[in-house]
């Protein structure tokens, strides 16, 4: 007898979202999650929150390299070129 997986509840669904958005779920888990999402606005909103979080992470943030650190490395470059 084939044992069918039980339907997901929200508390289980949230643990599949990150892999789902990366395309890393097994076909079985993807189907289970998509079936759940089709009937659950709350989890669909959760997926959207994670999606926005990932999108925002990939957008360029502030660059925090200090002028002193940059000068130290520029000096390294000059010395390297002088020795060449």
């Amino acid at each position, binding site marked *: 007898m084939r044992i069918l997986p039980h339907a997901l509840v929200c508390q289980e669904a949230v643990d599949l979202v*990150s892999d789902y958005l990366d395309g890393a779920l097994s076909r079985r888990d993807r189907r289970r999650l998509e079936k759940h999402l089709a009937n659950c606005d709350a989890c669909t909103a959760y997926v959207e929150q994670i999606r926005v979080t990932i999108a925002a992470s990939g957008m360029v943030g502030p660059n925090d390299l200090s002028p002193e650190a940059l000068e130290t490395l520029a000096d390294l470059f000059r010395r390297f070129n002088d020795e060449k």
Partner: protein
Amino acid sequence: MSPSPAWGMFHLFSNVRRRYGGRVDDSELLTRLIDGDERAFAEIVTRYQSLLVRVARLYVKSDASAEDVAQDTWIAVLKGVERFEGRSSFKTWLLHILVNRARTTGSKESRVLPIDLTWSEGSALSKRFDEGGFWREAPVPFTEAIENGIVNAPLVALVHEQIEKLPEVQRAVVTLRDVEGLSTTEVASLLDITEVNVRVILHRGRSLVRSAIETTLQGGVS
């Protein structure tokens, strides 16, 4: 050796791109770097130095040690850039050099990456669910932070601020995967952990950032 006319065109082209706010490709900067252009080196350093220090910090015990490893990496880049064949991206090549050095230094300092794989978002948010495992109160999409389909600047800043606050392993994985856009395979190889571990850590990091944003946005609603 005097620069060829093609070089003149190249410089003109890169200036035009910069003027219009476009990002100059790493490969263009590397070509200029090999030619001894200090500004190209400064730009590449500005692009990657903080990433290098952050990743090195996973292997060594102090910020100073991480900065030394990053500096050694730049010396290796200057020595080896002419042999870089572009089979991988410059970023991947750079990070491999860094991680090799950081590992050597790190093993001298005998540091082990702490990884907890037992974590679950469902358990972390358990108070948000009823006995049946369904949301007591549905999450609210971050629509107020989206303008014309694009995430707005305050949310981008908030997300980066929260990534910086993550515990170090999650910070590294989220930084490499989501901020820097490396693949799960590349992240696993760089950090010398399995892809399954990368995915678990990534899931946890993203979940923590999401929670922090949700709290901030809801707290910020007047």
